């Protein structure tokens, strides 16, 4: 943004151009050193791993397709779970903010219990304990249900905070123009709350892709399971674990990039044109 509009003239004072140029230079120096730091540290870690663990390229070539195939399950389970979790979170948040004591009580209990027990315990409970009550659920749906419930509880608090962060003036204005309570929530508050919580939800989604590794204990052949199954019998457990870690990281990089783009788009209304 230049001062052209302000002065109304076509001549830009040289001092302004100098300041802009020096800002750009500092920006690029920052970026360069930033990238250099990444490269140096990653190279150091890479050398350390190669020296201690070793890279067996033949083994990797043979097994990489099998291991990477697990990403399908990781993504499938994460994507479905985050949608269900968000749905649960909205209900939970409305419950936590509700004046109805039953609704509020149930929502608070849900949050407290599910946040208070380990995800691994929840997965095993759904898979192993429910059959005693006659409810038998297969491994993949068990993973989805466990993750949805677990993240739904955490996201409930996020959504509750997001709803409360919507400026009060919005609610007052909505009521002033005669919108019924339900419409206020649906058309004014929730859409704005969504924008506020998007970074947190994106964050949790990325965390969830890592938590899917826990589902390997009930036998879903996702990324970690495959890495271990490939590595253990052949004595290459380290290599495969590191490969799995790198794949998770790449997945995270991709998802973070998309999250950044989503946040930019949602903030479009804020930017000065």
């Amino acid at each position, binding site marked *: 943004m230049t001062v052209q509009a302000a002065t109304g003239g076509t001549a830009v004072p040289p001092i302004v151009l100098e300041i802009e140029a020096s800002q750009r230079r500092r920006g690029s120096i920052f970026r360069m050193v930033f990238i250099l730091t990444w490269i140096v540290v990653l190279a150091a870690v890479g050398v350390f791993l190669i020296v201690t663990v070793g890279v067996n390229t033949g083994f990797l070539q043979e097994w990489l397709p099998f291991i990477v195939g697990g990403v399908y399950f990781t993504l499938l389970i994460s994507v479905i779970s985050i949608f269900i979790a968000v749905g649960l979170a909205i209900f939970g948040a409305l419950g936590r903010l509700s004046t109805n004591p039953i609704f509020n009580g149930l929502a608070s209990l849900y949050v407290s219990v599910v946040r208070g027990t380990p995800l691994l315990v929840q997965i095993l409970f759904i898979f192993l304990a429910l059959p005693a009550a006659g409810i038998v659920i297969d491994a993949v749906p068990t993973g989805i249900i466990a993750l949805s419930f677990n993240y739904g509880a955490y996201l409930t608090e996020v959504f509750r905070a997001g709803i409360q962060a919507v400026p009060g003036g919005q609610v007052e204005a909505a009521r002033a123009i005669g919108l019924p309570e339900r419409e206020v929530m649906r058309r004014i508050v*929730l859409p704005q709350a969504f924008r506020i919580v998007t970074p947190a939800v994106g964050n949790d989604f990325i965390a969830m892709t890592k938590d899917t590794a826990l589902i390997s204990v009930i036998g879903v052949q996702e990324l970690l399971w495959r890495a271990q199954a490939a590595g253990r019998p052949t004595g290459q457990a380290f290599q495969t674990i590191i490969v799995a870690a790198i794949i998770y990281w790449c997945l995270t990089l991709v998802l973070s990039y998309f999250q950044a783009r989503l946040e930019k788009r949602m903030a479009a209304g804020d930017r000065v044109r």
Partner: protein
Amino acid sequence: MNPVHSTRPRLIGLLATAAIIFAACSSAASTTEPSAAAPTPASSAAAASPTEAIATPIPDGLLDKILKAGTIVVSTDPNYAPQSFVQPDGSYDGFDIAVAEEIGKRLGVTVKYETPGWDTITAGSWGGRWDISVGSMTITVPRRGVLDFSPAYYFTPAQMTATTDSGITSIAELAGKTVCLGSATTYEDWIKGTLESESLGPVAVPPADIKLQTLPTDQDCAQAIAAGRKDAVGFLTSSTTVDQAIKNGTPIVKIGEPVFTEQLAVSIDKSGPDDTDFLARLKTIIEEMHADGTLSALSLKWFDEDLTVPPTS
């Protein structure tokens, strides 16, 4: 985004519904990779087995269910070479897998595999998710409480090993030291002194004061030792797994005579459908496999020794 005509919640709802439908369809299909290295041809139940005295299976029993489906679902833990391990194309191979395929062939059904964790299999209450376990499971008294066992299809000695740099050469020297084992294995029971295995031959007494390092599976112990972890100086598992580990270069040596010999059998969940007639069929099949040399041949192929002969005590 236009806050009044908000398309976003509608889009999210649509995507969520599509995702759930997709999940339902894909979970209806198997979560695992399809069958073993040598898939059996699908044959109808009546055509395949010549020794079958065609009595009607108990309605809704296990045998009925398997024959009607034309498939038997076998659970396996493919982290246990050379008994069961996974191939780069996702199929399974190993001694247990070969035995499972043979059982399927003699029943006249195809074989499908599920891969839950080992302690899930030994705990029973499978919920009908798989029909049998062919996983080198030792017959023990506690397990008989929740599982039915076939006759043993092979026998393995439990072999104690010590890391090469610990300098330990006898089992007695392990007193007060830490030994690594897989969780929910009979080896863990033996060390704890709670082994109620129907083992054949003498059962040695574990040294006093032994400490345990329990990892999810036997292979994790081999890996930990190979990595140079010093938590444990010993590793107890079946002699077949020991041989495999040594072949892989794990720095361990066998010490002492085998501490006990176990019977390994196929197991079936007691809380599943009625398995009386299936057990009878299974017994016949396994006895036939012993008699016609199939099991011996497989044992020689995978273990370089015939472990299918019961040891003389």
